């Protein structure tokens, strides 16, 4: 059931975004895994376009917030405003109350704002002055980051990066695909072409189906072994947290379900290790200086080669 829906969503996003099937698929997996995504890439590489098309194909409410250094937490989560007619304060919801929130340039906002957003992402509810309101279900944050800008930005600390289930790196497309992108942009991009192909109840059903994807105890042991091997790697200052392993497990379940399986296999875990773990690992200064070219992705790749999966 789920694998068929994935194809329908791809067909819709393809109407406006050229050559981003792999990224669309990852965002869908993350959505089904009840996670949030960090989209990393230089400006103008179709991150926003894809997010909008994805939201439209799912028929969900979509909001975009451009993060700036002068923002306040209430610009995101909302706050109490005085209603003169009722002579009382009432809660006005911020843009976080949506199904899909595009947090554009999330690292441009000051730490207080980042923290407010990330708390909402984690708890799926907002609390202001003792008043708590749940966020819509489902809800996903697509945060974007520009990797080459350093001025006027507040890089997300490790603890906050850990809240993003996946980091998807948008790289430049091959020449042929880029030619197709230019061709597509000769006219206006019409979002009206993108039709919703899934209903809200169907989406909730899909999320429930993913949660039921079978995971054997041995497979859990494999995940733990991977995590522990990385934590004891001398090249790393910071290995994957238990939360990271839980999220990797959820993504493996989503991948399995999208491939039409009701159980996960070691390949699901291996295939999603990099995209789920790389942004959470921190290399030691020694590893960075002594062996240029070493990066978290290399450590992950070497670890999954060493750790034996259940066969």
């Amino acid at each position, binding site marked *: 059931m789920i694998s068929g829906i994935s194809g329908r969503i791809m067909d819709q996003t393809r109407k406006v975004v050229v050559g981003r099937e792999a990224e669309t698929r990852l965002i869908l997996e993350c959505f089904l895994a009840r996670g949030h995504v960090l989209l990393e890439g230089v400006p103008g590489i179709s991150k926003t376009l894809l997010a909008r098309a994805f939201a439209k194909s799912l028929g969900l409410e979509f909001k975009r917030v451009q993060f700036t250094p002068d923002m306040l937490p209430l610009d995101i989560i909302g706050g109490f405003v005085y209603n003169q007619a009722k002579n009382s304060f009432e809660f006005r919801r911020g843009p976080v109350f949506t199904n899909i929130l595009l947090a554009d340039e999330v690292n441009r906002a000051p730490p207080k704002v980042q923290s407010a957003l990330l708390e909402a992402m984690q708890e799926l509810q907002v609390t202001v002055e003792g008043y708590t309101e749940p966020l819509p279900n489902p809800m996903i944050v697509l945060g974007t980051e520009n990797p080459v800008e350093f001025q006027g930005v507040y890089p997300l600390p490790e603890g906050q990066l850990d809240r993003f289930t996946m980091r998807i790196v948008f790289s430049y497309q091959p020449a042929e695909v880029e030619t197709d992108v230019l061709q597509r942009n000769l006219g206006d991009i019409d979002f009206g072409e993108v039709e919703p192909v899934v209903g809200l109840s169907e989406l909730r059903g899909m999320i429930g189906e993913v949660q039921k994807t079978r995971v054997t105890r041995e497979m859990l042991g494999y995940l733990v072994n991977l995590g522990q091997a990385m934590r004891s790697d001398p090249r790393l200052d910071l290995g994957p947290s238990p939360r990271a392993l839980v999220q990797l497990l959820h993504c493996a379940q989503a991948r399995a379900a999208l491939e039409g399986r009701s159980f996960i296999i070691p390949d699901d875990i291996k295939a999603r290790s990099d995209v789920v773990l790389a942004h959470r690992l921190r290399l030691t200064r020694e590893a960075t200086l002594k062996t240029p070219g070493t990066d978290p992705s290399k450590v992950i790749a070497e670890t999954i080669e060493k750790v034996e999966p*259940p066969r």
Partner: protein
Amino acid sequence: MDWSIELAGANAALYLALSYQLVRAKRIKPSRAGSLRDAFGVLEKEVKKGMPSLPPGHTWREVAAEAKRRGLRVDWVSFGKSMEAYEELRYGGSEGGGTDYREVLTLARELERLK
């Protein structure tokens, strides 16, 4: 007289070569693998010997991909079905009975020939 001795020698060499090939081909008999699980057990041993470059973290799908890359003669459609049935048995909790696993043993034999 001379030529008959030579002929007998050639015959003996031919029969020896044929017997050797026959023994090699029958070393992995289906009886050694009485079930799908056994067949993958046999394959596991041959993978370790025949594909020493595969890292310890390999999966069955990676084994199949590597074997295809090496051009080993296996019916891959049939192997794929056996592999999926094994995955269901191993990770999905199914019974896995009645699945044809001949191609799993064919791959094991092919790997043995590589040695």
